[in-house]
Each structure stands twice: as C-alpha cells, then as structure tokens.
C-alpha cells in the first residue's frame, strides 16, 4: 500500500514522450514556493471545496490523497501503455517526495520494469546515499531538483540542508544514471548572478556525465492552491521572473553539449 495524491495522465513536463505521472504524498521539505502543498503530509486529507453551480455556491468535500495497492496502481499506469510505446514515454514517480515511501517506490519501479515501461523518478534527492542508490538500480531517468546551491539559502527556503543532496547527485552520475537537473527559478532566492555562477560551476565539473537541464520559471499557478487549502502562502506575493531573464539563464547554462530547455 502506498499513499498518492494524484495521477496525471498525458503529463507533458516530466520526461520524454507521453507519460503518466504518479504523485506520492508526503514530503520532508517545505519549499517556500511549493506548488503542491497538498503533498506535505503523508495522511490522506479532506478539504471543503466551493463550486459554482447554477449561480449558487455549493460546498463539497474534496479528498486529497488515497491509499492504493501497488498492483492497482500498476493497472492504472498500464492503461496508457500504448501511448508510452508510440511516444517513447513512460511513468514518472513524483511527489511530494517519492523517496519517502521508498519501499513502495522500489516495488513500483520493479513492476514497471517488468512491464517494459520507461521509469523516471522526480526527486529532491533528500535521502541517504544507500537508499538513493538502491532506487537508482531500478530507475531509467532521474529528474533531479537543484533548488539552490547556497547551503544557507537552501536551509532557509526548503527547511533542509543541501550537502547530502549534492552528494547524492554525484552518486547517481557516478553510477552512470541518466539525470536531468531541474532548477526552479525563484526570484530573490536563486536567480542572482552569484547563484547562477555556482550552478554553472557545478555543471561544468560534471559535463561529461549528463546532458540536460530544465529551467522551471516560478509561476504563481501554485499560489491558488494555498487559499483553497486554507494555508498561508509562505512566499508572499512575488513577481514571476521576466522572460528575458529566463532566456539569459538559458544561454548561460547552454555550455558545450548541454541541452537547456524551459519548462521541461
């Protein structure tokens, strides 16, 4: 049994081809800009939802999260198998943080492998070295978040230290795993010159071992959910990054052989 909070089919931003993304519930981080606050706690939860119908506001309950058996989840993933085949797509396990339910994650990865489905894991990398290498044994692709390079800022804006995260990135690269680094660009947090230089140095050192970087510009699309869940939006009102700035960042990271895309 595992807890998930959503299954998104026809996912377009979580790896190659047409994919189904499974969102695991529960996350040890608390990123200020998180756009999946319903993923924080592992327990399923219910919230009131007001819907407009015939000009009236109708309150209904909406469930966030459900317990599901591994086999049943596999059945749902397999429903789009033909689409995966036709597009070289597959399944992506995301969250929350999928490594939090690593036993279940590993059995999902094994099951998917048995069914010849391409497997991606979208992770913050916040886990022990042993655990992440075990998961890596059954994973074809990592979407690996690098939220900020500055240890202080990382601690402040996500609640956890980034030293293990950076170490784990090397563990995966040294295992020869395919890794796509994903950087959310959050104004005021990780978009300074100094910060971008730090990213660049990190990439340059590992240039032989990976090919792709995704830049995910901060979007206030996530802020709506907070009000729906009656949560305070921790980041407060900030502006979305400017298109030109994003383009500059893209150019900066486009060093020999690295493919940089905006939005995944």
């Amino acid at each position, binding site marked *: 049994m595992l807890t998930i909070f959503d299954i998104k089919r026809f996912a377009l931003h979580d790896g190659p081809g047409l994919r189904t993304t499974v969102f695991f519930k529960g996350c040890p981080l608390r990123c200020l800009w998180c756009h999946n606050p319903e993923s924080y706690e592992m327990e399923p939860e219910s919230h009131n939802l007001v819907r407009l119908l015939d000009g009236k506001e109708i309150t209904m309950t909406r469930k966030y999260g459900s317990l599901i058996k591994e086999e049943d989840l596999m059945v749902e993933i397999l429903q789009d198998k033909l689409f995966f*085949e036709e597009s070289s797509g597959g399944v992506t396990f995301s969250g929350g943080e999928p490594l939090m339910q690593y036993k279940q994650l590993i059995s999902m990865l094994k099951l998917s492998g048995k069914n010849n489905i391409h497997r991606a894991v979208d992770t913050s990398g916040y886990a022990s070295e042993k655990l992440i290498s075990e998961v890596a044994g059954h994973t074809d692709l990592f979407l690996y978040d690098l939220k900020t390079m500055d240890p202080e800022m990382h601690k402040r804006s996500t609640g956890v230290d980034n030293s293990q995260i950076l170490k784990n990135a090397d563990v995966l690269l040294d295992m020869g795993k395919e890794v796509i680094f994903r950087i959310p660009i959050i104004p005021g947090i990780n978009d300074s010159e100094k910060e971008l230089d730090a990213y660049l140095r990190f990439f340059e050192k590992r240039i032989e071992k990976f090919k792709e970087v995704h830049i995910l510009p901060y*979007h206030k699309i996530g802020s709506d959910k907070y009000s729906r869940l009656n949560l305070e939006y921790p980041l407060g009102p900030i502006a979305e990054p400017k298109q030109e700035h994003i383009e500059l960042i893209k150019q900066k990271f486009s060093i020999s052989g690295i493919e940089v895309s905006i939005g995944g």
Partner: protein
Amino acid sequence: MLTNRIQQLRNASLNAINTLSAERAVLMTDFYMSSDLEGKSIPVQRALSFEYLMEKKQLCVLDGELIVGERGPAPKATPTFPEISLHSLEDLDILDSREKVSFKVDAAVREVYEQKIIPFWKGRTNRDRLIAGMEPEWISAYEAGVFTEFQEQRAPGHTVLGKKIYSTGLLKFIKEIDDRLEGLEGKQESGDISEREELTAMKIAANAIIMYARRNAELLNEMALKDSDPERKMELRYMASICYKVPAHAPETLHEALQYYWFVHLGVITELNPWDSFNPGRLDQHLLSFYKNDLSEGRQTKESAIELIQAFWVKFNNHPSPPKMGVTAKESSTYTDFCLINLGGMKEDGSDAVNEMSFILLDVIEEMRLLQPSSMIQVSKNNPDSFIERAVKIVKTGYGQPSIFNSDAIVEELLNQGKSIIDARNGGASGCVETGAFGTEAYILTGYFNLVKVLELSMHNGVDPANGKQIGPQTGSFIEFSAFEDIKRAFTVQLNYLLDLKIKGNRIIEQIYAENLPVPFLSLFVEDCIANGKDYNVGGARYNTSYIQGVGLGSVSDMLASLKHHLFDSKTMGAETMMKILGDDFIGHEEIRAELIYNTPKYGNDDDVADEHAVWVFNQFYEAVNGKPNYRGGAFRINMLPTTSHVYFGSVVGATPDGRHAGLPLSEGISPFQGADRKGPTAVLNSAAKIDHLKTGGTLLNQKFTPDFFKDGKGIKKITQLIRTYFRMMGHHIQFNVVSADTLRAAQEAPENYQDLIVRVAGYSDYFNDLGEELQDEIIRRTEQE
C-alpha cells in the same frame, strides 16, 4: 502570400451576401409547363429538364477568374429546388430577415414565387409525396425529435467522385452508353424502370453539360474580344479553349482537370440538391500527374499552379447549402455544404500515398482559410510523421481544419461492409466523417437518431414527457423497475421499435426518389450505373449503403451510469426522487445536481464502470440497424456523428440523470459530454476506442486544446503521437479544437461544462477550473494575444 488575383476573388467570395435566386425554380417551372412530356419516361423527363437548365441558365464569369461556372447567376446566389420542397412566402420572409445565415430575398423573387412557382408546385413536391407516404407513428416520432429525415428537403447524395474523369472525356462515356443501348436493341425489358430509358437519360445529361461548357467557351471568347488588357485577353482565350475541350475530352493539364471537375460539380448540384453537395475526394492523388507534367513541359511553375488551385478553392466557397424551409430550419443551423477534400492515405497497393501535391494542398488550405471546401488528412501507418505534423501546424491556427482520419480504419470499415480491397483503398471520408468508397458507392445519409430521447421515452413508458403523447411502446413504469436490467430492457425495446420505424420510412423514401427523382447526370459518374443501366437513386452504383447517424452516445451513457450508480448500486436516492428532480429541472436541487455532475461515473475517463454503457448502447444500436436491407439493394449501416443535431436533439429532451439541464445540447459524436472528462486526452481516447469503430461508417471525436499545447515543435510532436496511438487502437477520426478566449470566459461562467479544460503554462499544466479567478483572467488575456 496570396496573389492580387486570389485576394480579390477570395474577398469577393467572403463579402458576397447570400441571396435566394429564383432562376432555377423559374426555369424548372417553365420547363414543366411548356414541354410536351407525353409518353416520356421519368428519367428522360428529368434529363430534359437538366438540359433545359444548362441551356438557359445565366452564365457568370468574374473578374480574374481562372475556373468558370456558378450554380446561380452570381456567387452565393442560391437556387431552390421546388420539385423537392417548396418555400412558402412566409419561409422567404424568414430567410430574408433572420439573424443567422440569412438569405436575401428581393421583391422580384417574392413576386415570381407568389405568381408562378407556388401555384405550380403546391401539392406536387416530393416532400408532399414523402410526408403522405409516412405512417402516423413515423410522424409522431419525427415530431418528437427522435430522428430527422435528410431526404425530406435534400436529395440523396453524399457521393464522392473517383478518378474516372481524369482519364476519360464525356464523349467516351457517351460511346459506352451507345454500346450498351445497342446491346439492348431488340431485347424485351422487364420492370417498370427500364434500362433503355435510364441510359437514354444519362446520354442527354452528358450532352447537356458539354453544351453548357461550350456556352461558357463562347462567352469567354466574346469577353476576350472586348477586354482591353492584353494579358487577360490571352487568358480568356486560353480558358475558352479549355471549355471547348473538357468535359467532352479527357483533361491533359492541371487547368483542364480542375475545370472538368468543376463542370461535373456544378452539374451535380444543379440537377438536384444532394446532401453535402459533391466532392472531388482524393484530390492530391488526382492532380499529381497533371501538375508534374505541367512542370516538366513548362506550362506551369509551382507558384502559378498554386494560384490556379486557389482560384479553384474559391469556387467551393461561393456555394452555401440551399436554404431549408422554415419548418425544419431549426434542425440544422449550419449552411456550409460539406465538401471534404481528402489528402494522403494509401494507394491501391496499400503503400504511402502522401506526395508533393498533398503538401501543396496543405499550403493552399492554410493560406486560403475558407470554410469551404473543408479538408482532412488520411493517416495510415505508412504515412510519414512530417505529413501529420504539417497538418497539425494548420490545426493550431484554430480554424478547425484539417480534421484527421485513420486510413487503416476506413479501409477495414469498407472491407467489413463487403467492398473489394481496391475500392476500399480508393475510399475515404466525406461530409463530416462518413466512410465511403469513392466513385463506386452511393452512401446515403438518412438522418440523425436521438439515442437520448430513446432513453427518456424508456423512463416514461413510451410517453414524451414534453407533451404527454405516446411515441413508443409501453415498456413499463419507471418507478416500478426493480433492477437496472429493467431499464436496459425497456431501452432495447424502444430503440428497436423506433429504428424499425425509421428504416421502414427510409425504404419508402428511397422508393419515392427512385420513381420520381432519378439523377441521370450524377449517375454518369458513379460506377457501375452505366454498366448496370440503372440510376444512382435506383441502386445502380456498385455499392448502395444507407446510414443512420447515432447522436448522444456520451450523454446516454452517462445517464445510464448515473441511474445505475444512484438508484441501484449506491442507492443514494429512489426512482421517484430522481423523476422529481428531473421534472423540476434541478431547480431547488442544486446540491443533488452537483453530486450528479461531480460524483458520478462519466464516460470519457477510461473507467469501465462508465464506459461499459457506451459500449452497450453502441452495440444495441449496431444490432438494430446493421445489415437491414434498403430499397436500393444495399444495406443500412450506422455511423456516429451529429453535425449540429446534438443541439436540436438536446432542445427536445428534458433534464437528464447526468445533471444536464432540460433543453441543453447533448454530447457530440463519440466525444464525452461537454466537460465530463477529467483525466486528460489519453483517457478520452482509450474510452472512445472501447467501441468498435470498424463496425461503423465513421465516428466523430472532438478534443479541445488550449493554444499552448501547440506552441512548439515538442507540443506538435506529442499531439502527433496522441493521434498515432488512437489510430493504432483503430479510432476513426479526431478533430482538434483550439479553444478561444471566449471559450475560457464561458468556462468561468459555467465551470461544470468545462471540467476537461487543461491549460499549459511553461513547466506546469492544470485544470482551468482549478485556478483562481485572477489567474484565469491572465490566461484568457494570454490566449487572446495568440
């Protein structure tokens, strides 16, 4: 870039206002009043009337035109067909003044209608015969909105031309007819409609169009004499020489091929008003060799060929579909006359048919952006991705064309109906999505069939709740049904009864057309009418199909799923409560309505619990129709498409258990009910593929996308992969609607109808409904900019 000439022609077409032309009606009346028809057979009479029209009708050549011939005296001057149905003065007034798609009727037209046309045709139209031929049960079901009847004001049509004209001139056709007639010499003939008469009629019609072409040639020469521009002078002379040559002789150049087709097109839509006008079908296949020869012999450059094709394109747009009488105008709110150009697909040997001309025509479609002709691409496993991607790039510009079809499915469907593999591979789709063997089949659409009304009748013991009239048999009181099976049983009985009524009616209607309105001109071009010595409307074609189009599959499926879930499985309410809230149209029961919409299984989410009902209804419908003999020696078949009838059909159905308000539109084609799909396009396609498309002659699936999805190469690739997968599951057709800012605004007003709208922002996608208002507004602004 469009040339000046094309811009001018295109503007002239777009700016021309629809007018009602009495020319054809007057000529037809004159013909029947003045001619001595004693002892002449009906086919010969019809052929002579056609000859009369082609001889007398006013010619029209517009400035800069390269392809000549108009149905009426001017673009969008639309004739009427009083021998089929007669407009009353009141109808004319409505047409003149109504807001949507009006047809201007001037005083002279009104007068000639009053003085001449109405007095002559009153009580003598085919519609009068047809209505008189129907049983009272048929009439009540028709009036209740259970089905519509296509042939009531339009002739049987829906035929697509094959390749014969591109290699054969009409003089050869005539020779063929003469040979057949000679063979008949001395032989006794049986039956009331004789082969000799049919063939003689065809010959008269063939000569009539040659004469009409010659009239055009003469006019062009006259114009050349008068024209002061030396270039246009030459052009007009050249066009005259073409009209002297085709359609009498086989075409040898692109220009001749296009002009030949156009004469045939005009002939068909002047002879009668066949449903969905007429259609050249696989145009890229037909034109390629002419184009290549022109290039290699220096007659055309790529640019001049494109201009010529564009001049041809405009001609279609000049011909709106003939307006109906007021009574039934509400059944259909569209006046485009569905001509659907087919591109791509496969050759006779099954190999990839995509060629240079396919891409040229896609360019033409993109540049012209006209409503007519409409266009589609046929995609088989063997066609390259580049072809689909090119088409998707046009789709993203948001004007709904081209639609995308599965050639492999089309061929299988035709084979299932007993066509030869060669005829199947020469086939395609016409109208909206209808499968046919081009050039060899008379596949006649008989009308839409309201599956939702059938379930409503099943819930009311056969009575129409709108007016208390008994329409169907008594199948039991709904509140006494003790199991879900009882509902299904009632539905099956109602369905079979009502379909039998429709089928019986259509057999009679086919006979009425066969006996009274043969079409010798159209028959010339559909194999094997000449060889069989039999008219198209009598069953002369190699294949003769009659289609009934099922409407409301998604809705009826959701209704059944809701009844099963709420009344029998979860027992959230009793049958009486259900009837009460439906009777109240949910007023005062908004919370229950929310449950019906948001917490009830729905077709389109790849959930068997809901989808099994769609499959069940589909199979019942198929069993009740497929293979039943029609009058013309062929069989009835089904397809699943609504055009705009889901709106009319919705207007005659009360509130339904899926949460739909009374009077609102039903689901469209095999698409889920508006907004009922919440799991994205792959789930919709999986649901839609659960029914067996190969048992049909076409299904229609519409998918909404916001423009963001098509933004970059990656997005277009993903759409292509989506199409490929659906077609691998043997889906028949998919059309992408790129939603506009207006749709998004409508979604803000009535979110329950737009649950399926996904918006894509770089790096994120989310349901539009789940966004806050501020963000929604922002997305609307962005969509508007694109």
